[in-house]
């Protein structure tokens, strides 16, 4: 099957029509849900992707079938999920199955693998979703990291959706207010896409790399997804280029140390540092960080941590003013991206790691 044929089938599904002959009617009419995933196949090639997919699919009682050029179908009894791995590290998973079935496949079978993680968009990345903006959603909760937060500096929690004319402007207005700016984290955005002679579509994206598309033409959506993938890949590779710490031997027999320490300066002081330390390393979603932290000097903590998503060791150093992240020479940049995206939604929406702006 050509990629274009698959996009045609998705366009039909979005219009409420489904080809009963295609994959035994498992491609249902309805919205197309897509997820951007970051993968570490055992070999960076189509064969490596296939080896990994066959094992993951078997765990989920699905059959992995190669249906095109770096394109796979994970076929179940009633549903089908497509994996587009043209880029063997950054994959797109598509399906018209219900959101619940897709979530179950991801949380119980795919994202449990240390070789697979989801994308973690910062607010800046979400703002780059193309098209005419239809709505923006912001959600924030300081309960996870600061359960005893007074609410004076940082909102305890909120969830808002702004629809209508120029929704970005209203969220920007809120984020200029001193008492709300720490909570104005961008969680999801939706845009309308149209092109003369092609049709139209509406695509929504959230900060966990999820997309939902409706309308008449999936080809428009596919372009947006590919460009989002490219931007995300650039971001992750830039994090790795700058923040992976490595050591080499010099010609003179000495040692050269490469890479920077990622310094995240907190936009506001941590109110309860012991609580933040205790709640950051609980091994739970979304951070999934394992560590036994220790206070190395008054007010400064060190955590020799493990990112349980991927099984990489990292070091975090934390005070009430800043967080340093020391990546290993092979630590995945997605680890840092996940930390930043989740701190934006649970500590302060303005948290960022210094990098040149994504292209």
């Amino acid at each position: 099957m050509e990629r274009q044929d698959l996009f045609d089938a998705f366009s039909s599904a979005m219009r409420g029509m489904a080809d009963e002959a295609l994959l035994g009617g498992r491609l249902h009419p309805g919205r197309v849900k897509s997820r951007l995933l970051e993968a570490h196949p055992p070999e960076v090639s189509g064969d490596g992707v296939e080896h990994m997919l066959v094992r993951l699919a078997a765990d989920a009682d699905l059959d992995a079938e190669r249906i095109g050029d770096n394109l796979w179908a994970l076929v179940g009894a009633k549903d089908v999920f497509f994996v587009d791995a043209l880029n063997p590290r950054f994959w797109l998973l598509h399906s018209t199955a219900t959101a619940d079935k897709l979530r179950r496949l991801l949380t119980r079978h795919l994202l449990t693998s240390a070789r697979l993680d989801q994308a973690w968009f910062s607010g800046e990345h979400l703002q780059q979703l193309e098209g005419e903006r239809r709505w923006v959603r912001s959600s924030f909760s300081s309960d996870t990291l600061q359960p005893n937060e007074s609410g004076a500096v940082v909102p305890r929690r909120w969830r808002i959706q702004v629809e209508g004319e120029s929704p970005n402007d209203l969220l920007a207005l809120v984020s200029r207010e001193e008492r709300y700016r720490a909570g104005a984290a961008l969680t999801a955005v939706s845009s309308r896409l149209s092109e003369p002679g092609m049709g139209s579509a509406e695509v929504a994206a959230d900060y966990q790399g999820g997309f939902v598309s409706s309308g008449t033409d999936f080809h428009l959506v596919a372009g947006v997804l590919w460009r989002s993938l490219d931007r995300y890949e650039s971001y992750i590779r830039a994090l790795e280029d700058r923040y992976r710490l490595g050591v080499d031997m010099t010609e003179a027999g000495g040692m050269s140390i490469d890479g920077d320490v990622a310094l995240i300066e907190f936009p506001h002081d941590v109110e309860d540092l012991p609580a933040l330390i205790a709640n950051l390393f609980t091994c739970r979603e979304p951070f999934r960080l394992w560590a036994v932290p220790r206070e190395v000097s008054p007010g400064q903590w060190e955590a020799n941590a493990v990112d349980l998503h991927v099984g990489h060791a990292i070091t975090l150093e934390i005070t009430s003013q800043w967080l340093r992240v020391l990546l290993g020479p092979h630590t995945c940049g997605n680890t840092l991206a996940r930390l930043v995206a989740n701190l934006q939604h649970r500590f302060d929406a303005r948290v960022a790691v210094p990098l040149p702006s994504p292209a």
Partner: protein
Amino acid sequence: MGSQRVRLTTEGNVPGLTPFDESHQAGLPPARIPVDHQSSDEDLMELLPPQIVAAQSAEEDIVSVETIAERILPEWVVLAHGTRGAFVARLADLLRGLSAREMRGQFRYESLRQPHTRGRIVIEATPASRDPRGRTQAWQAQQRRAASALKRRQAQEAAGQLSLDELAEQGGLAEE
């Protein structure tokens, strides 16, 4: 260099090195080189449980002690053959102790006769292979084992109010 003060003293006049003594608020410098081959057992032990947990999380079956040494010791690339061997032997002793005490049943230590490879750890159990519903608790049990090995009291998680999303994830609510 301390968490609030940085000082340089020199004997005599050393070109390019002017003594200074400054106060600062930047905290301890980043631990880019957390240990070297002469570090105490106590400092090396800080880095061993995370290496074992990383191997468990990545579902590695076997890790040689030499690989662990390379992962925790930035100066590994410049160490002489004999120094490497001595360091690997020290790690092997520490790992043997961990596998016999606090992390018993999690991994075992196996001696090997090959040059430079004094041994390897074999992962015997990993929370990563558990049912997702019990996995977090199993990782937290690993934290308690490591805290015991490091003679440290594990910080207690402060219970926050569950969000609607978290309740839904735990099966407490249907779709919002």
